[in-house]
């Protein structure tokens, strides 16, 4: 150690209490989180939006349940899913449902817009910034103009409106496929150097993409499978589709 005068000062001696000087207790820390697998996927169309999730619930290599829903219709044309640590997911959805209930009480049964729901969820998430909800959250519905909308959140509340987003265990498997098939990334008009122009997909095309995404994710990811639940939001309300996935 050098002092300002350039003279070398010896380092201070280790105090008697220094950890290396005594036997340290082995600290066994409780881990308040776990990973419960599963994956979710939201895609917005021109006048509809879908939010899908598999129904497998896991811890480590065990399948806890083959039929645990994680995408919910909370009313007002809003569907929500929070994927990751299941207890936080349950808690977050419960809190959002409650928030919506009191919004109706206080605002004379006014319908909650999707953008307002998104901002509210940011506050729920950020409110636990220093002990976060360990989830990837996606909501879907229609915006104020009736156009399909998907909002996605990180665990502490950063959020963005997007055309599509995959979350959870197999997000990294599905997202590049979506970039290519929904936003036509890396697609070019044959013969020219021009990018393929973005067009809206029909609800039938979107459901096909969702089903393909999940069958493929099921093949490659052990925490994805058993069942696929798709919630489809249109101006007429929320419709539910269920498809079997491989159970191995």
């Amino acid at each position: 150690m050098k002092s300002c005068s350039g003279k070398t000062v010896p380092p201070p001696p280790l105090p008697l209490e220094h950890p290396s000087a005594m036997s340290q207790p082995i600290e066994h820390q409780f881990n308040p989180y776990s990973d419960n697998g599963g994956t979710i996927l939201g895609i917005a169309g021109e006048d509809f939006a879908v939010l899908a999730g598999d129904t497998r619930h896991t811890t480590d290599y065990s399948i806890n349940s083959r039929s645990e829903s994680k995408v919910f219709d909370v009313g007002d044309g809003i569907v929500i899913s929070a994927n990751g640590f299941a207890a936080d997911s349950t808690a977050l959805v419960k809190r959002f449902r409650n928030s919506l209930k009191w919004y109706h009480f206080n605002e004379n049964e006014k319908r909650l817009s999707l953008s307002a729901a998104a901002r509210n969820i940011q506050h729920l998430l950020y409110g636990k910034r220093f002990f976060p909800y360990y989830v990837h959250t996606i909501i879907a519905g229609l915006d104020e103009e009736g156009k399909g909308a998907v909002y996605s959140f990180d665990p502490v509340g950063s959020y963005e409106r997007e055309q599509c987003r995959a979350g959870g265990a197999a997000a990294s498997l599905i997202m590049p496929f979506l970039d290519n098939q929904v936003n036509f990334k890396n697609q070019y008009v044959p013969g020219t150097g021009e990018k393929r122009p973005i067009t809206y997909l029909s609800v039938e095309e979107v459901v096909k993409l969702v089903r393909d995404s999940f069958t493929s994710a099921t093949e490659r990811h052990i925490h994805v499978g058993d069942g696929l639940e798709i919630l489809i939001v249109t101006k007429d309300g929320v419709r539910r589709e269920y498809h079997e996935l491989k159970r191995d």
Partner: protein
Amino acid sequence: MNHDPYSWGRPSDETYGQYSDAIAHAPSFPKMNTQQPIVTGTSVISMKYNNGVIIAADHLGSYGSLLRFTDIERLFPVGKNTVVGISGDISDMQHIEALLEELETENNYDNSHADDEESLQPSYVFEYLATVMYQRRSKMNPLWNALIVAGVEDSKPFLKYVNLLGVTYSSPTLATGFGAHLAVPLLRRVVDRESDVEKTDMQTATDTILQAMKVLYYRDARSSRKFSMAIIDNDQGLVFNKELEVENMKWNFAKDIKGYGTQKV
């Protein structure tokens, strides 16, 4: 006077003794009194059948590898059509038992229909326990248990799980701990999906649970021969058998096991 600027502003060693820099070496986290399970109960197993649910757990309280307590009941009836099965720390289990007794007392106290229309239902008991479990984990002071709530509600079987993290899930077959690995595959051979529940009668379900308890006694070193089994049937109500034992075991393979005991290989 020490003219070295490095020493300026420090308490003089002559007066105060050598400066202690222990604080600079303090661990980055304060010491935490996080608990660990001490005396533990092993698996609870359960499954649905076409007219109710069955749940079973053995009578052992283990202190590490010591089979410390041999007559501990881990199935707790709540109301007329709910049974809570608890594995994990036994003292935390007894705390939960107290909470459940309080829940029942409160319900009887302020409800004139407490034993019919407004009786405690499995879903009420479950939601309460799940709330307690999640609150405790969020305070970093968990109840070190995994619970299964089994019962009949609105004439339909009810089965749901919650653990020390507040993680909850439901399935037609459920087990905690070792049972999740050893018993669930056996139970799922009979009831794999919700639609299989309709095809399974009480006898089949009982046989399946008994077989699973036998396998657990064979392979789980922290299990006991004595166990309890509760059946919550939509028509018969609660049938609680506390005097069961694993029967018809075959140990003749044991003589062929070599290499662990005193015998020469």
